[in-house]
């Protein structure tokens, strides 16, 4: 039997234009022509013969893979590896530069929940609109309407404009519509990053059910290793537009975590204009340190410092650096925000700052911990940047008997392993032998 998805030699090229602003103004183009007509003509002529010195960027290069019917395949990789570009090509949103993809059966994509939701329309109206945008026929939506409403749990507010919904209700309704699509192939981007934990679980369950029982094929892009592991037997690892590993999910995830491009103990952004951030603040570097040195492997008993270097470009904003810690399975360990009273409420001046969060020794569990770095402002909440997978480090216990492990040598579950203060009282029970 033919594979249900066949991707052959797919490449995607972008031309990078060196400009700062979002879009080009026709005015600028026209003035450039007027100012130096010869340079413009020369450039056009060069373009015509294909010698122009424009910078090319291959977001994807020679991607080949096949997916069999009923398989769930995960796609992982660092930011900018080409995951989303690949998904956008598969959905047809943007065409490839070269290559060909063949897909058997109906295809639906879920790059975002609630695409096309209009805040002024009611829940009922949005179900129909969103369903139509996702490719459902009107009759199909009519048939499934009651199920959709029930799954979402917003029955009471179905005739209220969605702008009055809480964000949780909004996401639930949006996902509910998406979950009731019945395509042969479903392409899913990081959509589960939203919603509360309980609802995420419900969604994962629904997707699992879709592949296992209904025999549908899913291609799933995610940062959530836990979700990937739960859903997908197979996995593809992308890096700089190329497939560098493919096969059993656990092996591929290990490859990712141990690859050079996977998160390491230090990451720097030398060019401030290309660094994560906005006009107010940009990230320069994130480092994992122990005893003053950058370390990949941290001694479980010693404090670990996560250092963030950032440049404040606009004065007058209160900034709160924060870190998100999660483990290899994608389980969130904890989130910490800067609570140094000196800076917590104080608008910052322009300049370079370095903030370090100290994780006490004897708190973390063994294994790889991945750190996302962000800077936010409260009231109103603005996330200036959030760099997922910024750095990672391996926590190691040297079995000396003085950590929380004691003398036990087996594997210990849990994302934290604090060394607690124990007390034991002894009283003589009086039983005589």
């Amino acid at each position, binding site marked *: 039997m033919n594979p249900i998805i066949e991707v052959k030699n797919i490449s995607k090229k972008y031309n990078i234009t060196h400009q700062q602003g979002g879009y080009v103004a026709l005015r600028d183009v026209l003035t450039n022509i007027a100012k130096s007509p010869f340079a413009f003509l020369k450039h056009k002529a060069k373009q015509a013969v294909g010698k122009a010195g424009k910078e090319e960027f291959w977001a994807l290069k020679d991607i080949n893979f096949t997916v069999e019917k009923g398989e769930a395949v995960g796609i992982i990789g660092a930011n900018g590896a080409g995951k989303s570009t690949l998904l956008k090509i598969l959905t047809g949103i943007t065409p490839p530069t070269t290559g*060909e993809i063949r897909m058997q059966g109906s295809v639906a994509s879920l790059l975002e929940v609630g695409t096309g939701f209009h805040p002024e329309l009611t829940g009922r109206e949005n179900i129909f609109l969103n369903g139509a945008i996702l490719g459902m026929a009107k009759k199909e939506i009519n048939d499934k309407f009651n199920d959709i409403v029930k799954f979402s749990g917003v029955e009471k507010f179905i005739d209220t404009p969605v702008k009055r919904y809480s964000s949780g209700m909004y996401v639930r309704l949006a996902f509910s519509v998406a979950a009731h699509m019945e395509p042969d192939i479903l392409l899913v981007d990081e959509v589960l990053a939203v919603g509360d934990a309980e609802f995420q679980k419900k969604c994962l369950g629904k997707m699992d059910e879709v592949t296992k029982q209904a025999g549908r094929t899913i291609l799933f892009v995610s940062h959530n290793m836990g979700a990937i592991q739960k859903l997908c037997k197979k996995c593809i690892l992308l890096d700089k537009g190329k497939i560098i590993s493919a096969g059993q999910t656990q092996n591929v995830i290990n490859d990712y975590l141990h690859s050079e491009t996977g998160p390491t103990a230090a990451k720097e952004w030398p060019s401030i204009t290309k660094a994560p951030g906005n006009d107010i603040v940009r990230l320069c570097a994130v480092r994992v340190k122990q005893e003053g040195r950058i370390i990949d492997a941290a001694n479980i008993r010693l404090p670990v410092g996560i250092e963030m270097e950032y440049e404040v470009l606009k004065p007058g904003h209160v900034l709160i650096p924060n870190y998100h810690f999660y483990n290899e399975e994608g389980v969130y360990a904890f989130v910490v925000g800067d609570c140094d009273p000196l800076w917590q409420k104080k608008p910052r001046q322009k300049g370079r700052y370095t903030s370090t969060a100290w994780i006490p020794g004897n708190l973390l569990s063994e294994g790889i911990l991945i750190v996302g770095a962000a800077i936010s402002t409260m009231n109103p909440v603005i996330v200036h940047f959030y760099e997922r997978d910024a750095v990672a480090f391996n926590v190691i216990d040297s079995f000396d008997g003085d950590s929380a492990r004691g003398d036990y040598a087996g594997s210990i579950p849990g994302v934290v392993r604090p060394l607690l203060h124990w007390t034991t009282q002894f009283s003589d029970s009086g039983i005589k032998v």
Partner: protein
Amino acid sequence: MNGTKTTIIKPKKTFSWNDLKEIWQYKELLYFFTWRDLKVRYKQTVIGILWAIFQPFMTMVVFSIFFGKFAQMPSDGIPYPIFVYTGLLLWQFFSSALSETSNCLISNQAIITKVYFPRLILPISSVATKLVDFAIASVILVGLMAYYNYLPNLAGLLIIPLLLLITFMASVGLGLFLASINVKYRDVRYALPFFIQMLLFVTPVIYPASIAGKYSWILAMNPMTGVIKAARSAILGGAPINWELLAISGVTCFVLLVFGIIYFKKTERYFADIV
């Protein structure tokens, strides 16, 4: 399971007949986009759908007072309000459809970057929305005729679908160009209202085409001239329909539409990347 349907994704060609077939497959989405635009536009407004009438009506009143009464603009022997409103109806359909079409890609960018569907659906649904407005605003014309005891030429009404078709081609054709350029150069958004305002004065809406005398060929270059002239001749009587002028308008608009579609399809592949 119908395993027969195969999707093939390849580097995009400029234009193929399959594109038109695809639009037909997506006709339900076309309906939903139109429905959404109509529904959303008048939500949370006090007079709701009456806005579709209010705008052309007030324009007509102001024009009648200043151009009809004070400036004594000739109107080929027809009561000036009826004369100007007939022109305004078609003009507003054209201008609002044009500006809506030009912005349709920008205003729907959230959807364009997340879901695939034939992009041509967006401009078509924009115009369809305006067609509904046109139909509603036409009611005023009937009222005006009753008020002035003016009996229209009923047989002339038969030509209206043809005139709407020409106007449709003109606004979509030009709109497709502008929409494609608008994705890359946002200047269009600022230049267009000004451009449309200028265009109003070189279209015989306020005045009859006959006013230009021997320079009427300048007006004839504007496709809307033929349409508005024909509408007045057909419904209000007076001069016979200038079929030659109308044919030129029709052909010009058709060519405009074809080039608009080709240009749109040619640039379509970049929309999701740069919008």
